[in-house]
């Protein structure tokens, strides 16, 4: 296992004791969106995946895990990339779960779901997740959870809302350029990781 993968697994084990809370949030979203299958995956990508992805910072703040990170034989670069790898794993898991749930809901509701619709929904979900994580992780690594927890959560949502309203983005706009938008998400996360890696070592990563 590589150092980055080891860090990602460390985060999995860090949040594992809180899985019940995660399932509760997932269940609540599912109930709210029970009649709207198309909204399941984007909602999970915007709300649940980032929540789980940054939860290691919440636990680290409480348990002072920064000390553990500092004494473990793992480089700072691996620590930073490990956060991103963990976040991507969160997206993949929530998107896969959401897709299955949405498919089930669509059949119950007798709504068309799949093919191009699904591809568009996944692209939107990916973009929402990428913006969220690209903003949150550098903030958390530079300033720590205690200082930026509220800003880190609200800023990405505000950015998405402003982008949708100002640029008049529609699902059609997304449907026409999926490859470009997936690549844009990757580029955003790469830039974010580069910025996060420049954070001074200390009680943040």
């Amino acid at each position, binding site marked *: *296992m590589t150092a980055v993968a*080891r860090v990602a*697994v*460390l985060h999995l*084990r*860090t949040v*594992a*004791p*809180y899985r019940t809370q995660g399932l509760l949030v997932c269940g609540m979203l599912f109930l709210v969106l029970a009649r709207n299958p198309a909204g399941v995956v984007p909602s999970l990508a915007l709300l649940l995946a980032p929540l789980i992805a940054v939860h290691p910072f919440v*636990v680290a703040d*409480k*348990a*002072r*895990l*920064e*000390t*553990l990170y*500092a*004494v*473990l*034989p*793992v*480089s700072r670069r691996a620590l930073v990339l490990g956060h991103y790898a963990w976040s991507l794993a969160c997206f993949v898991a929530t998107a896969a779960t959401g897709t299955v749930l949405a498919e089930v809901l669509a059949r119950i509701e007798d709504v068309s779901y799949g093919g191009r619709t699904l591809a568009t929904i996944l692209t939107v979900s990916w973009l929402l997740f990428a913006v969220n994580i690209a903003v949150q992780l550098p903030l958390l690594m530079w300033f720590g959870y205690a200082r930026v927890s509220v800003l880190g959560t609200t800023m990405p949502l505000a950015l998405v809302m402003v982008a949708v309203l100002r640029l008049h983005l529609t699902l059609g706009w997304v449907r026409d350029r999926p490859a470009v938008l997936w690549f844009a998400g990757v580029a955003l996360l790469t830039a974010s990781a580069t910025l996060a890696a420049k954070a001074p070592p200390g009680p943040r990563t």
Partner: protein
Amino acid sequence: MTSDLAFALRSVGCAVGGGFALRDVSFELPTGYVMGLIGANGAGKTTMIRCLLGMRAIETGEAELLGRRVPGPVELRQDIGVVLDHTALVGDWRLTEVERTLRPFYDRWDGARYRHFLDEFGLDPRARVRDLSRGMAMKLVIAVALSHHARLLVLDEPTSGLDPVARDELAGIIGDFLLDEEHSVLFSTHITADLDRIGDYVTLVHRGRVVRTGPKDEVLDSYRVVRGGPDDLGGTDGAATLVGVELIGLRRTPAGAQALVRAEEADLLDAGLLVERPTLEEIALHIGSEPSGPVGRRGGRSGAIA
């Protein structure tokens, strides 16, 4: 870099904040020994340890750890067991999960050894970290530190808050660790009794500076504690009776006065004063009660018998 040293700090300085800084900190430990880092709370012990471990940047001077200049490669951390004054583990982890989580990071993690220590320390593998008492939690962190075959054990105030029985057990654990002569220990504490049994070397720190460092017996021999009546050490008006003897951490009560002096100056004292070899606790007490500046040197803010 010399490889027969477990570690060395050479003229290390770094600003910490709030006006506190490490200044010209130098001390070293040969491989195979235990060093006690003694100082009052806030003396700079933890900062020195953080500088040594590469957890805090050094602004001046240099640090060496197991023959490598700090900050060394991350692989160096495979050889260092760190026990700080808090567990730095997730409270909801069970002790079995602690092992599952940390094992992948260490090339030489020894699961059997970890379980052996849990058993020896009376720790239930199914217990959660948050349910452990302070003493039990400290034993858990020590079990972790010893389970990856570290060569250097660094303990920062591990006995703080422990009862005497747990402190005695810890001394035994460190003694066992040192059966391998390639193993070394750095142990910071303000409870000097901990070092009476296991300390080979001692470094006294005060306000971010090293006051004295060396083999424990040499440090003990380098001071004398002097006791007299309330007016014997300088008198109430500050008048002196002997010239040139620096009184370190002069403590005066209605019943008498007591101070630490350098051993080579003790012969200059009045014959009517009681002069004895101090204990580590007495040395720490007097040095720790100095108001500021370097102590044990000329020009300090100690009282003087003149």
